[in-house]
């Protein structure tokens, strides 16, 4: 009897964990695949199909440490553009990235794509996070 109950609880727990994981996995996949198309249309010309950038002109998107450190500022970079010196992969870049008129959901999707491609693995950046970050844009 005891065994049955324990077994039942275990089964339930596994199911819950599994379905939870599934939900977040489904959310991730949705953001990621949507982000891929947005990346191609809005970012790829400059940053390249593999996020490789262009020499010292356009920074690559492969610096995971930079992306992680600036995770909450990335949404504003897209919304208001980025200007001034930045250090990416130990190289200095000082061009200007123009602002792009993306909707918050599009920003969330494309950020999820970028921060989980090209060797990066930061997980989903969802709409709620992006909306919160955008309120703090300077």
């Amino acid at each position, binding site marked *: 009897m005891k065994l049955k109950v324990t077994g039942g609880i275990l089964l339930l727990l596994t199911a819950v964990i599994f379905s939870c994981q599934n939900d977040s996995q489904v959310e991730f996949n949705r953001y990621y695949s949507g982000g891929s198309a947005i990346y191609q249309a809005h970012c790829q*010309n*400059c940053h*390249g199909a593999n996020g490789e950038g*262009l*020499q*010292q*002109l*356009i920074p690559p998107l492969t610096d995971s440490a930079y992306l992680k450190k600036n995770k909450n500022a990335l949404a504003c970079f897209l919304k208001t553009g980025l200007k001034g010196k930045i250090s990416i992969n130990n190289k200095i870049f000082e061009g200007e990235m*123009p602002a792009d008129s993306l909707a918050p959901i599009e920003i969330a999707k494309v950020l999820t794509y970028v921060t989980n491609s090209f060797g990066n693995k930061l997980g989903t950046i969802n709409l709620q996070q992006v909306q919160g970050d955008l309120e703090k844009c300077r």
Partner: protein
Amino acid sequence: MRKLIWGIIVLSVLDACNNKQGKLPILGNREPVNKTVDGKSVVDTAYSTIPDFKFVNQYGDTITQKSLQGKIYVADFFFTTCPSICPVMHRNMLNVYKEFKADDNFRIISHTIDPKYDTVPVLKRYADKMGLSGNNWWLLHGDKGSTYTIAKSYLQTVQEKNPAGQYIHDGFFILIDKQKRIRGTYEGTDPKEVEKMIADIKILKAEPEQAAAK
């Protein structure tokens, strides 16, 4: 009979390949000219050529047709602040630059269509950031009129800024031989086309007429 037809097809396909590998076409307008050879009047073909020009490169040196004498070159049109097709074009052009970096009889010239912003120092900074050194790839500055005029002889269209502040221009790479004739145009935003251009440049360099020209 069927075998014979197949034979003809295979042969003609092979032949087409041969033609392609041996010589590139000459593009642009052409007109017949009457010439006198050994006292006899013959009709020859005059191909359109790139007229003389005068621009300044990223080092501040004056570049004319003379600077390109005896050289095969590729031309394109761009501007340094172009957010759309230029980064793609020059990412691809970089492969061409690397492939022929050791060849002093080959050049790349990129005309800026925004001379007001792209001054010589701006072009130099762009070249530095692109990692360009030496004289294989020149970024050329000139007044708007001369640049837009020379674009026409390369069969290219460039326009003034549109209301959104962007320039409209073609993303083509144009291959020019030592006789200043157009030998190929390639979509500079397409890596496959640019690969083909690299192969075509090698074919062109090997043409007896090009190898002999000084």
